[in-house]
């Protein structure tokens, strides 16, 4: 007898038909899911001279800032991270405003040949008053960055950061991670669900902001490696190594994502 329903084996034909329909739906849906993330395009850096100049100079500035403040960070992590936040935020803000296309400005190119009539529909939607608005997008991105900081903090605690002590340390570290890696993405993608699903599942094509995120996450992960060592170095203090990993990984990821890796995908 045919056994179909995976939960309640049922031999009824009616059930079988339902299951068949479900199976068909399942066959179709992966391609649908693929389509949603596959259409996400890499974020193009603006072609203006200022943008091109900033795209190279700003990472160097960030790196310089980190190196310059490293000693202070080791001696007093909390106050150094607090004072650095505005500077880092300003650099990232400048990066977003000068280099990145604001959310909505970069219309998605259809991945397949448009059917007649579809293009018109899109145009209507686009011109439907949702024209890109940089100041609003910036404000929104800053707010989102602020809100995501506690979530990152919680994630760090889950990875084993001290849960009850060192709250300021961890929170500030999370804030740096948010400002570096998340803020440009919020600016470029807004709250586009499909885009974020593509980003979070690491299916999005590499570009500067996404490369930065991937690099910062991997860097933060690797940053935990030297902590347990009994070398008794000052820089092993929480969260110096994590912050090192975040900055190093972010800068490397951003540069690679914008150059060699541009447009490539991390996973099929």
């Amino acid at each position: 007898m045919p056994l179909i329903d995976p939960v309640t084996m049922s031999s009824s034909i009616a059930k079988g038909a339902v299951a068949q329909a479900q199976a068909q739906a399942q066959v179709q849906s992966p391609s649908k899911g693929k389509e949603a993330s596959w259409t996400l395009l890499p974020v193009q850096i603006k072609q203006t001279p200022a943008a091109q100049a900033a795209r190279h100079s700003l990472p160097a500035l960030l790196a310089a800032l980190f190196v310059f403040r490293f000693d202070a960070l080791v001696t007093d992590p909390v106050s150094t991270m607090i004072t650095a936040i505005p500077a880092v935020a300003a650099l990232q803000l400048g990066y977003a405003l000068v280099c990145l296309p604001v959310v909505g400005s970069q219309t998605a190119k259809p991945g397949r040949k448009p059917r007649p009539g579809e293009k018109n529909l899109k145009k209507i939607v686009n011109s439907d008053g949702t024209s890109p608005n940089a100041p609003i997008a910036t404000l929104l991105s800053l707010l989102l960055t602020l809100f995501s900081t506690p979530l990152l903090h919680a994630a760090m605690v889950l990875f084993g950061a001290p849960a009850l002590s060192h709250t300021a340390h961890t929170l500030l570290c999370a804030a740096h991670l948010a400002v570096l890696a998340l803020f440009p993405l919020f600016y470029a993608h807004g709250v586009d669900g499909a885009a974020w699903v593509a980003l979070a599942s690491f299916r999005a094509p590499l570009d500067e902001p996404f490369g930065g995120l991937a690099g910062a996450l991997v860097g933060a992960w690797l940053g935990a490696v030297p902590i347990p060592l009994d070398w008794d170095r000052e820089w092993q203090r929480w969260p110096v190594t994590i912050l090192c990993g975040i900055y190093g990984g972010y800068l490397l990821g951003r540069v690679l994502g914008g150059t060699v890796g541009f447009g490539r995908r991390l996973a099929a």
Partner: protein
Amino acid sequence: MPPPNPTKGKAPPPLDYKPISSQYAAAKQAKAASEADHDRHVTLRERQREALEAARKKSYETRWLWTVGFWIWMLCIHLVGIAYFTSGFLLTRLILDEKSICDAPPTLNISSSPIHILPPWKGKGTVDGGCWHPKTFERAVIVLIDALRYDFTVPVGDDAAFHDAFPFMYDAAIRSPNNAFLRPFIADPPTATLQRLKGLTTGTLPTFVDVGSSFSGTAIEEDNLLMQLRDAGKRIVHLGDDTWDALFPGYFEGNLSRPYDSFNVWDLHTVDNGVVEHIFPLMGRTSEWDLLIGHCLGVDHAGHRYGPDHPEMTKKLRQMDTFVRDLAETIDDDTLLIVMGDHGMDSKGDHGGESDEEIESAVWMYSSRSVFGRTKPEFVTPPSTAKTRPVNQIDLVPTLALLLGIPIPYNNLGRPIEEAFSGPAGNSWGNLAAAERTAAAGLKRYQASYFAARNIEQATTPGSPTDLWNQAEDLVLDTKGKNKPDWAAVYSAFAAYQQETLQRCKSLWARFDLKNMILGIVIMALGVVALLVYVSRGEDDDDDIIDDPELDAAEKSLQMQGFKAEGEASPGEDLEKRMVSAALFGALPVLGGGLLQAYLSGVGDYHRGVGFAALTSIATVMVTLFESRETLFRLVPRTLWGWMAVVFTLSQSIGFASNSYTIWEDSILVFFITTFGFVTALFALRLPSLADRYLSIYHSVLFVLLGRLASFSKLCREEQMPYCTSTYYASATSSTSAPWQLAIPFLVVLILPSIVKAYLVPTRSYEGMAPTWISYAFRAGLFMSAVYWALDAVGNGNWIDGIPDKLLKNFSVYTAQTVLSLALVAGTTAFVWAPPCVSIITSATRAGHAQVTVLGYGNAHGARYLLLPLNILGACILLSKPMGGGALALMAWQILSLAEILDLNALTASPIGPVMLAVLGAFHFFTTGHQAVLSSIQWDSAFIPLFTLRYPWSPLAVALNTFAGQIVATTAVPLLVLWKVGPKKKGLLERVSRALGVLVAYYAVEALATMAWAGWLRRHLMLYRVFSPKFMTAAVALLVVDIVGIVVSLAGVRCNTMAISEVFGWAE
């Protein structure tokens, strides 16, 4: 056609599988009858079907046996590898059989015309006058207070329960320094009583191998104090700890001695009261004995059971104070009283390792005569900490020997204690120098024979022992001729010689047998490679086994027509058979040859044959694997998950080369668990179905949260301080649970069964026996373990007055025994006989056809198998104390989430599942209050279900407590494979065996890495504190996992498949 009787199908689901299967068969027959009309044909087909079923069952059983055979071979390889390495790694010392002789002092042989420091004394060379030195006492009373840490005996002035409760010895030493002295007494690790007694009587350093025999001591054959006394015709009486009886069988006066069971750590008073009761009458009958040993265990047991900081410890120390005070009153002028500890205890009251607190003990000597002196006035006050002026424990041996006038045991490495020979005025330098020289000469004699036996040249370079000895002897010659001899300088010279020699001996005995170590590592490494190749049969093969029901039906009918039962074999089906045959083929000739060769040559190196047999059998197995196109190249991971599995396994194992990563292993495991959860949560976004996405994210987040929550239960090791807070017990200096922790087992009772139910309900698998077993039997077991721990706390804290300790203990032990028999005996029986967790409903469709619905069909394998890990979990929760039980409950929840995650992300065939399970097992080793150090073994868990030590139950209880995490993880391996698998799936045994292979590979890689690192870093400062215990933990964990995998997981899968196939027909 009439529809089948509907009332039959609506009856409540019966609990036995026979009714279900008959019902099912009836329903099936009814349906078959409704479709086909010629009955004869049906019966013929039925008979063919039965024959096919029988054939498939038989082939399954054969395959299962071969699979088990393969795993037994793997276990043997691991055993041989570990045994080989251990035999080369754990220190060995050549035991010399020579004995010291009374009239042959070692000073005789050192030069042709011996010079004596002391003038001849009356009775020189006889036991009556003193063999090698004038004797001071006729007899001695040794009171050994087990685990008497030095700071228990000196004033400290804080509020700790273990301080200032035992002031008598300190006060006496200050009040009358000529009658008593107190000094720190440093034990040589390992700090287990058995090893310490060996050191305290022979004067040599113990070796590590001895640790294993601590549960059942073995007789000392070396020259020792007791042997010397016995040979001199002295009578020895022993009271207390029966370890002495094991070490010195037949030494003690049978009618006066009173041995007591030593390992019942729950019993604080029987041994002590016995010693106190019997020692005082003996003090009035001094003519009947010459050495009286009283070994008290109460302080040690209070430490193990409660930790030092507990009112019981105060009581115990006060009792000892009174006891020693009273005993000192009864000491006559010819008797020496020694009170000492054999080792200390760590902050939680345990011992075994080599931390400062474990090795710092105290020694106090008392005489009613004026005997003892101090060479400096400031030495009158006993040192405030054990860091100043400590005495080595081996120093007791020459001191006692010379004081009682017997020869110093041949193998002694110690030196006389200054106070005992410096005279009441503290200026008898001649006497002191003579004693020191006698001991040093004995040491030199021992060294000479040791080097001769081992064929080692003694160094004569400046600063070497030989050089120091010659200097000291020259000084004797010089000083002897002078008018006012400066014996103090001579004394210092010999002391320097002794210290240098002791150092040399320590490093000499840290000598490893590299050949055996390397052979052990090679066997382990090749075993790991063979296992990996076996495991890497790969994800591709899984796709080959097609689960299409139509294909199966077609195959079945083909088989029925052709009636070829055994003909069909899925690819790789008989791989295990070929491997086991190859292993035997490779092993037997070499094993036989090796044994024969060892027998003929008479050297007795039987182990060589075993080692080479292991190597050749691995070689033949590898050849078989390569013949069936299993190669190492398949091991290179091709997916992110494969890479994660490799990174988690390798990075951890590489990290064990560093003491820091070994010390912080628990935090690293949390990091990996969270990493896995985050990656699965992110990858869940790739799932096409929105519902699957949410479920997968939910389970991933849950997995991470539960792991982090469990990580709050921990017991810090000394090296983690001060960055770690222990939460496993009430406080860092206790080994009892805090009152709030008692709520945890009750929470587990409330929550855990409901959680398990919640994982079964979605697949409609909460049917059959599941409701009864999970909601009632399992819950009742959990409730009783909660009651057990509540009773335990009542007893520990004396919360209720008037309840006799005995009654409480009786009640709690029987409760524990009930839990264990419910979980292990009744649970196993129920698991073997349980029907599948399904319910069959037969009803009529509107069209008038018979419709059979099987609730729980989709998870028929997984839901039923789940009952087995739950049983094991129940037993482990009881034995793991409240905090550990809570952690294990979280672990069970995590495992269920892991199974869901793997199923949702289609990862059941990926190695990441078993690797995560192994990581969970390793992680919950820590959350159940363990560390990779000897002192964290919770010996008291042996007495949870027992009153006294009983073999093999006590070691089994300790093993279940220690490796609860790994054991639960191993029993859950089949769960990951079987979860959400219906009864028609093929090749499950192979999949389980391979998943088990991945899990074992994780632990085998860990054991191999720790083994290799321990061997490589054998001169590292932290060898005995970090690397060696980590290796031992990893090796034992591997063997436990191997055994549990065979005895529980594979056997469980067999029972499960039998029961499922009995009902649904054989798919395998």
